[in-house]
């Protein structure tokens, strides 16, 4: 069936062409950022209030507090310049830790607080056994904070 074949050919070319066009023109890359930084969130106009966004940063050491009676926590998220308070309902991921990177999804409220319902723990690209870490070994790495501020 030549007609069918032609349709199939067009579909497969569209598949590749569409995929490439998405890379080149679509909402990929510079047009849409995967997450905002706390500085950008602080500078949000009111349009962004109550809009679902993702924010990435470092969890500030010693800022995490849990509730005794329910699942949830509050902590501060920073990019080195600005810090925003985050509240979260639920159980955080296993790798969520103070002093480590995290991407939180939720809403920036008018009261300048980020209400999140999803935390994604961001881990770095260095891998080593716990003994080496305790011995204070440092591996060459790209600073996560630098990649945020640039």
């Amino acid at each position: 069936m030549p007609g069918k074949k032609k349709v199939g050919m067009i579909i497969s070319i569209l598949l590749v062409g569409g995929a490439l066009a998405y890379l080149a023109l679509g909402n990929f890359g510079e047009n849409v950022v995967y997450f905002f930084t706390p500085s950008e969130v602080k500078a949000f106009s009111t349009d962004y209030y109550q809009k679902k966004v993702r924010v990435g940063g470092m969890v500030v050491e010693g800022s995490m507090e849990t509730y005794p009676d329910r699942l949830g926590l509050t902590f501060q998220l920073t990019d080195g310049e600005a810090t925003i308070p985050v509240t979260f309902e639920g159980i955080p991921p296993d790798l969520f830790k103070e002093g480590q990177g995290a991407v939180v999804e939720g809403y920036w409220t008018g009261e300048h607080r980020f209400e999140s319902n999803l935390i994604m723990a961001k881990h770095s690209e260095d891998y080593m056994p716990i003994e080496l870490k305790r011995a204070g070994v440092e591996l060459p790495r790209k600073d996560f904070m630098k990649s945020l501020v640039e």
Partner: protein
Amino acid sequence: MTIHRVIRKVQRFQGWFGGGAALCLGVGLYLGLIGSPPDYYQGEVVRIMYIHVPLAHTALLAYIVLTIGSLWYLWKRDPIVDNMCQAVAALSAVFTALALGTGMIWGKPTWDTWWTWDARLTSFTVLLLILIGYLMLRTFVDDPEKEARYGAILAIVGFVDLPIIHFSVEWWRTLHQPQSISMRGVSISSGLLVPLMFMSIGMSLLFSYMLMVRTQLLYLDRLLHAKQGRLLSQFHLSKSDS
């Protein structure tokens, strides 16, 4: 009628690649699952890296081979090169899909999400779509010469995704972590690097072996079909048998 000399060479040497792959993967699996320490941050689940990263590397390696093969085909128009391209595209698609699958399994216990549309994951999914499109296109073209030519052009155009995949973690903010092995240095300590190296080398050898087997398969298929008169392409016959 004789078997092409390249295929005869492949037949003779493929066993070394298969054996080498089995050896490296065996050592790599032992070291990766039992003989290596857990990571300070991720704990035991870091062991998924030893399967995920080699699969992803091999998928990209396979696409590079496909691009070179496609250029070579357009230059020389040798049908056996086209057999190799068709074989490597299928393998690249399988490795890409498995890299995505193991990545999802790694993402759940570490990031706490199976999937997210960050730049690395999106560009890798695009690679899978390109490969599926390539393989689909080939099934829909009747003339083998046209099939090979269209496929080669499509594969070369699709190559633009490879630098995007590689640099996605540097150019954009992503949830996916940057490369551990790069110009900056290696940020994996030796205890965890050795199993990764074994698995990476083993996976590359396994890929080479699978490529040899699949190229042979497609060649023999073409040979048989051509001789039985089901595929009346004098072009492919005269080239392959000369």
